[in-house]
């Protein structure tokens, strides 16, 4: 019954839906579809990283009480030994979990945390090498199966598998967040350039001049007055700097808006009120050209040399700020097409404001192709991140990343597992995003498909 209804609905809905068509095209592309699945798997691994690889037990029973050490935010447990009746405080971060005796316990699939030393297996123990375990009595045993280092260890005895799982988190965070920044910038500038082109943004002379001039006071109020707040935040932490920077940007925008309105208000008379043309497209295209000709990796390296404390946030913000050009170009091209379409003319005829037309009508339809660029962008952001951590620049030393593990392997050639596994992880992630990007491009632009 339900199926039949759906069938009828499909028949009735004879209209061609671009998005449905694109999705159909995408689904036909087997590698891309599989990449989408692998990508989802990677995202799930990244989200579940603390459950998949953790030295703390997921669940434990001790002295008749149950605990969930991997999920708690508590720093200490006060445990009462059931035999002696003594109460001891257990520091969760420092505890020697594997040598404690529990009534029952459930370990994470990989019972190691990234960046934690296993003294018994220091100095590059490979996946096939005999691994040692020191039990509570101090005797050296063979490694029990559930504590095995499946993918070996590095020079400090840190588990490679745990590093890989948590490294996925770092890579995907940087890839996705930096591309969201890039997407916002790219969509905004690309749609402005495409929609207004070189002739369509017309405004009064006073308004234009005041807006251009307002860059100085906006800079003053956003950055000069607030320079100490920004500088202190920079020395403090990455996230507080991000907050202060956002506030500054808001102030910046607010001042420009204020001057813009002032300009609107004083636009009277033949001189001040004369209608002039703003070649938005030319400016934005030139800006894209300039950004494209700066060597991004060297720029990131140079800027990360400024921060006192390296932080992931700086890296992802810089990647985001420098990699929006592809998205902007896609969006621009799409908007150039859209703006001559009938529905935009209809919306204009109905007297909607330009902001509304751009946001509610054009952007919704023009956004899809930029997904192609976003997918490729994520791939290259992940490569940039891993190159940086391979060089040891910009990423804090206490965070385990794929690139960092690879560079450890590069320093010690006998330990092939330190090169191969992180390298394959980077390779798979990058391939997956590239394949998705390819699939999307073919789906959105059937002309290119062959």
């Amino acid at each position, binding site marked *: 019954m339900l199926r039949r209804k759906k069938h009828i609905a499909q028949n009735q809905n004879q209209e061609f839906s671009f998005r449905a068509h694109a999705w159909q095209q995408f689904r036909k592309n087997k590698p891309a579809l599989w990449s989408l699945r692998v990508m989802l798997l990677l995202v799930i691994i990244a989200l579940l990283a603390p459950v998949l690889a953790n030295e703390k037990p997921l669940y434990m029973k001790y002295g008749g009480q149950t605990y969930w050490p991997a999920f708690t935010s508590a720093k200490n447990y006060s445990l009462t030994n059931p035999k002696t009746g003594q109460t001891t405080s257990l520091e969760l971060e420092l505890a020697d979990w594997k040598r404690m005796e529990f009534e029952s316990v459930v370990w994470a699939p990989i019972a190691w945390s990234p960046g934690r030393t296993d003294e018994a297996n220091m100095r590059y123990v490979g996946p096939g090498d005999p691994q040692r375990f020191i039990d509570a009595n101090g005797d050296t045993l063979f490694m029990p199966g559930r504590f095995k280092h499946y993918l070996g260890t590095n020079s400090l005895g840190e588990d490679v598998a745990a590093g890989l799982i948590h490294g996925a988190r770092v890579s995907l965070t940087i890839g996705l967040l930096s591309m969201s920044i890039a997407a916002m910038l790219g969509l905004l500038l690309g749609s402005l350039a495409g929609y207004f082109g070189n002739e369509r943004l017309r405004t009064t002379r006073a308004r234009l001049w005041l807006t251009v001039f307002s860059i100085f006071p906006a800079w003053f109020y956003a950055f000069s*007055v607030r320079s100490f707040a920004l500088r202190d935040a920079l020395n403090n932490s990455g996230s507080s700097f991000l907050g202060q920077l956002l506030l500054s940007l808001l102030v910046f925008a607010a001042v420009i808006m204020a001057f813009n309105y002032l300009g609107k208000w004083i636009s009277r008379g033949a001189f001040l009120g004369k209608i002039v043309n703003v070649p938005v497209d030319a400016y934005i295209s030139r800006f894209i050209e300039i950004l494209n*000709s700066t*060597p991004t990796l060297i720029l990131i390296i*140079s800027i990360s*040399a400024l921060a006192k404390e390296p932080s992931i946030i700086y890296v992802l913000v810089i990647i985001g700020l420098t990699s929006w050009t592809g998205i902007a170009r896609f969006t621009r091209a799409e908007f150039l097409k859209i703006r001559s379409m009938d529905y935009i003319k209809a919306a204009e005829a109905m007297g909607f404001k330009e902001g509304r037309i751009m946001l509610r009508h054009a952007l919704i339809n023009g956004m899809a192709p930029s997904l192609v660029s976003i997918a490729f962008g994520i*791939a290259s952001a992940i490569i940039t991140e891993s190159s940086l951590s391979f060089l040891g620049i910009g990423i804090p030393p206490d965070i385990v990343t794929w690139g960092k593990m690879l560079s450890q*392997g*590069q320093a010690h*050639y006998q330990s092939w597992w330190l090169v191969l596994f992180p390298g394959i992880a980077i*390779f798979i992630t990058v391939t997956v995003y590239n394949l998705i990007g390819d699939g999307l491009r073919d789906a959105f632009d059937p002309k290119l498909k062959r």
Partner: protein
Amino acid sequence: MLKYIFRRIIVFIPTLFIISLLAFVISVNAPGDPVNALFSGSEGGGDNGQNERVEREKAVLRHKLGLDLPLFYITVSSLASPDTLYKVFDRAEYASLDRLINRYGNWNEISAWSKSVKALRKAVLAVPLPDTSTVSRSEAENALLQRNNCVEIIVSLQFTDDPVQIGSRLEELKKLTAAAFWTNEFRTRLSETTTAFTQMSTQKSVWKTYIPTLNFYGNNQYHRWIFGDGNWLTGKGAVNTEGIIRGDFGISYGTKQSVTRTIKRAVPWSVLMTLISVILAYLISIPIGVYAAAHKDSLFDRFSSVMLFMLYSMPSFFMGTLLLLLFANPEMFDLFPANGVKPVEGYPEGAGFFEKFRISLPYLILPLITYTYSSLAFLSRQMRVSTLEIVHQDFIRTARAKGLSERVVIWKHAVRNALLPIVTVFSNIFPAAIGGSVVLEVLFGIPGMGREIFDAIRTQDYPMIVSVFTLSGFMTLVGYLVADILYAVVDPRITYSSK
């Protein structure tokens, strides 16, 4: 054509300006004081005379580096800060003054306070210590200790902007100077300083910090950095620097030598590796791409497509490490040296270019493979797509119809037109090659620019970082220009006359 190239160069100027501006912003915000980084004389101890000599030498150095100039042509500052604030030498002192201005907004009172603290610092060293003939030895030692304590507090006053801290420190000074040996002159100075502080903290004019003012300076640090301190066009009369447009990039903090010398040694390696690899990539990728397109859906096409896609997604440093692991590893195949570009003992004496090249070749093979493959994958895919596009066009059908052999159709008619898009890609590959070279140069130990910037970051050598950044941007632009010219050469339809 010449006109077009000329116009293109004119367009580069704003781009170069922005790149140089970015580099300048980085160098200005670099942590630490360049004067301290470059100062080679001994730091002054407690001795007053020596301290003054060190200060004087540092001031000379500051002038040499142009740090006594304003930052930029236009600066936006508040009404509260005087337009001569940049003349304050000491960076820490400058920062605390700046913060005071931000807090109180009354420059007259702030400068009075700063002057009185400086006077106090001089006065405290002039206070005579009690003679051991009049007081006991332990008392004399105690007095010295007290005075040193006071000196420390006064010095710290110079670099503080927190009113609570200043207040408590002034209180402490007052208590410490209750002892008999302190002169009344010093006590009056101290009370003057205290009044200066109360005046500064009570007569606020914070509103001034919210009024922006624009300042214009013809001679500033940026101008000096770009054009040198002589005539900006001819460079005549330059004393300390000729500016980066004449190739003077300043002095490295690390080697204390001219950055230009280091860069001159590094640039050829980077350019050599990038150029050879890009040319190799073009030479290999064009036949692959064309062959794959001509035999679409053949085994070769499918196999090469998959291989190239995989290569394209492979990060170059992973590829490089794998190659090293396989071919420069005594446990696997020890075919190539793992590091460097020439033997440790250097070239034999009197070796010509070809001799040197022959010696260096084994060192260069692995790096060149790594350099080449990523652009190779990209280019082959691009070439295949553009050939496919051409093959479907009418003039190819015409060529086939007139009975030309498939070979001639593809290699003579199609390829020439398919080359167009791949030439424009040159401008995409070149920046990527320069940027990617950082990782590969570090990995393979090639003494190029990437390696220099990597080392510079480890030693916090900002003049070096900024110079390499600027030069890489410049080289990228040159890459764009070359791509544009090639584009015009390959496609005679394109005329660059202005509309």
